[in-house]
C-alpha cells in the first residue's frame, strides 16, 4: 500500500529515516496515545507503523510511551487496613449525625 493518509506531508517518504522533529515525526507523536490505545482508523495505524519501521527515534519513543502507560496500569494499588476502614466508617457516621 503506497497511499498515505496523513495529510499535509504527501511528499515526505515514510520509508527513509528522517531527522527527528521533522513535521512528519511531530504529527506522529501527536497521535501516539490514540495509536497505542488502538483508536485510530486502520489506514492511519498502518501508516504510523510504516513510519516507525523507518524512523528509529519515533520507534524508540513509542516504546517508551508504551512502557510508561504499562507501568501506570500495573502500578500497585494502595490497600486500606481493616482498622482504618472501620475507623473511617465511624467518622463518617459521626459527621452524618451532626
Amino acid at each position, binding site marked *: 500500500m503506497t497511499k498515505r493518509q496523513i495529510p499535509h506531508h504527501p511528499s515526505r517518504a515514510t520509508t527513509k529515516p528522517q531527522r527527528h522533529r521533522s513535521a512528519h515525526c511531530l504529527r506522529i507523536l*501527536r497521535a501516539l496515545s490514540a495509536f497505542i490505545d488502538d483508536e485510530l482508523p486502520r489506514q492511519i495505524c498502518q501508516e504510523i507503523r510504516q513510519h516507525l519501521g523507518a524512523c528509529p527515534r519515533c520507534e524508540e519513543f513509542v516504546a517508551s510511551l508504551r512502557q*510508561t*502507560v504499562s507501568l*501506570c496500569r500495573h502500578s500497585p*494499588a494502595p490497600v486500606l487496613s481493616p482498622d482504618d476502614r472501620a475507623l473511617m466508617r465511624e467518622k463518617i457516621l459521626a*459527621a452524618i449525625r451532626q
Partner: protein
Amino acid sequence: MVPPRSAPRTAKRTSTAHDLREAFDSLYRDHVDLMYRYASRLCGETEAAKDLVQETFLNAYRGFKQFRGEAQVSTWLYTIASRACLRMRRRQKGAPQRELSLEELVPTTDGEFHLQIPVDDLSPEEALQNKQLRQALNDAIDRLPPKYKMVLVLRDMEGLSAKEVGTVMGLNERAVKSRLHRARLFVRRELSRQGLAGSSPSQRADTDSE
C-alpha cells in the same frame, strides 16, 4: 455542589432514615476500597487520602436522592471524589495548575527518547518491584498539574474508559484524550530525564532475583 438534605418531616421519617443508613452501609462496604485506592493515587498514601474518602462518602450520603441509578455507582462516586479532591486541593499546596504544551513534551536531545529505567526485558510487574522505579513513577505522576493527573489516574490507573473519565470530570471525550496524551508524555519525559540509580546492571539483578 450537592446541597445538604434534611430528613423528610413525615411519618416515614424513621424508616427513611433506616433505609438511608442501610444503603449507606452497603455503599461503603462495597466501594470504600475502590475510593481509597483512587484517593491515595490522587493524594498519596496520607491522611489527606483518608480525608478525601470520608468527604466522598459524606457527600454521597447527602446526595443519595440525586443518584438515580442511570450512572454506575462507581462512576457516581468517582465524580463526587474528584470534585471533593479539587475543592480540597485549593486549600493545600501541590503541583500548580497549568497547561502542558505538546512542544515542551517532545524530546529534543538523543537521551530523551527512551526510558532510563530497567524495564526493557521485564514485565511491568517485575519492573515495579524496583522500589526506585515505583518512587520515580509516583513522583512523576505527582508533578503533573492536577487536571492532567486526574485524567491519567482515572484512565491509566483506575481503568475507566475515556467516556467515563469525561462523565466524571465533566469533559468531552476529545478533551479527555488530549489531556491524557499530554499527561502520558509528561510522565514519560520525567522518567526518561531522571534516570535512576537503579538502572545499573547490578541493581537490576536485585529485582530479577528469585
